[in-house]
């Protein structure tokens, strides 16, 4: 695992299981349940058999085998894929498009994927697709607001609304939504998806030390935004 963080990297444990199992319990959100019940109801496979009348999974190049393998390995990550896309592009319609495009891309590139890290592989495709989308959008339109990173149909472009947010929940949601994409994706993968640093590093294609520093920056920004940060005098240098 490549590091760029010198000193800090030495403290990061290489075992992703710490990050994988313990924090997920702490998070206590929906992602836990959806991970346990993976691999859905075999929707794609049933449709495939109905449409083609085929279930011939013999031979190494069988299309049926390919479809089946794809469903069993990638389909379980649709919820996570949608969540990431939704946070990055910040509206439902584009998020659905990005998920669909990503899954089709993943199927075509299935040969390049082998083994056990299906989720991070899928999420990295979603992430790249979403980032391409954001870049395309930005280059094709003039910015209508002064805020950095204003995107179409934004959930929360209006600072006025921020003040009037009915609940703390909305404030938290909006604070994350207002982060620059590179910080937003780190927070979403860590706090909502419960991924370990190693997994986040794989999704974002950055070293683990960078994952740590991005999360550090992102959280400091959130603390400022949410009013939880106080300037304190350090006792030590």
């Amino acid at each position, binding site marked *: 695992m490549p590091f760029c963080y010198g000193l800090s990297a030495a403290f990061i444990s290489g075992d992703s299981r710490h990050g994988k199992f313990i924090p997920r319990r702490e998070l206590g959100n929906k992602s836990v349940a959806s991970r*346990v019940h993976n691999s859905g109801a075999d929707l794609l496979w049933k*449709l*495939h058999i109905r449409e083609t009348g085929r279930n011939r999974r013999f031979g190494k190049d069988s299309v049926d*085998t390919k479809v089946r393998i794809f469903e069993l390995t990638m389909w379980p990550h649709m919820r996570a894929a949608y969540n990431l896309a939704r946070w990055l592009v910040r509206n439902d319609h584009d998020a659905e498009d990005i998920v*669909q495009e990503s899954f089709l891309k993943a199927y075509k590139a299935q040969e390049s994927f082998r083994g056990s890290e299906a989720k991070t592989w899928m999420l990295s495709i979603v992430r790249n697709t979403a980032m391409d989308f954001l870049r395309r959008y930005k280059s094709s339109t003039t910015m209508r607001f002064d805020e950095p990173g204003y995107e179409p149909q934004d959930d929360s472009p209006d600072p006025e609304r921020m003040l009037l947010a009915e609940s703390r929940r909305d404030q938290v949601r909006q604070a994350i939504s207002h982060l620059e994409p590179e910080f937003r994706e780190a927070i979403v993968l860590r706090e909502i998806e419960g991924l370990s640093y190693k997994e986040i590093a794989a999704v974002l294609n950055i070293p683990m030390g960078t994952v740590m*520093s991005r999360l550090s920056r992102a959280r400091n920004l959130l603390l400022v935004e949410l009013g*939880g940060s106080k300037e304190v005098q350090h006792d*030590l240098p």
Partner: protein
Amino acid sequence: MTCREAEPLLNARLDNELDMAGAASIDLHLSDCRACSAQYAALENLREEIAAADLAYTPGIALEQKLAARFLKEEKSPSRFWSASWLQPSVMAAVAVAVLAAIVSIPMLRTSRDNDAVAAEILDNHLRALQAVHQVDVPSSDQHAVKPWFQGKTAFSPPVPDLTKDDFILIGGRLEVIHQQPAAAIVYRRRQHVIDLYVSPSAGADSKTELRELGGYHLLRWTQDNLSYWAVSDVDAGDLRTFAELIRGR
């Protein structure tokens, strides 16, 4: 440790990403420095707030349906069944030979068909397990913990050899049902690859290993001492054969 060094590591501590020594040195610093410990408390509080806000977006059910529909549309290749190539004499001759061969080998084909179905089921089970949170019911690298675990759960005793020195690391075991039969799944790891070894009772005679490939995954099947074995993984065929020989020769 200085505050400057501690600052980014507070996050790693919060995220359970530090090893024991790293965590201990941060904890020591936190007990010394009020500012850092206040910062740490703020980070903990932020994490709780984010968790409490329940921010995961869930796709509508329609997304899965839409995706499946789009998928099949792209996937569906035009039917070439009655295309011109069928009418060429060489192809007709080949078909005739194939039909004859098929008639002769129907009994053989039937067992091979059965095995194909089992192979598909084994692969499905393996892939589902890879995506699941826990791949094993009894997680242990100790063969003396895994083997007894199966007792009372299965009517047979699957072999659970320690193959660490051959670079096949025991991860644990779980109970499965394959083809309406209880099966012990013993899980090993070879580098990044997971190998599932399915063991179930069999009335058949001992047989040699038989390799097949399904979509880039290798399956190796054999029968030995009234137990039927299937090893499945995405490791290369050579590694899987080595693994099988180690199990067979244990």
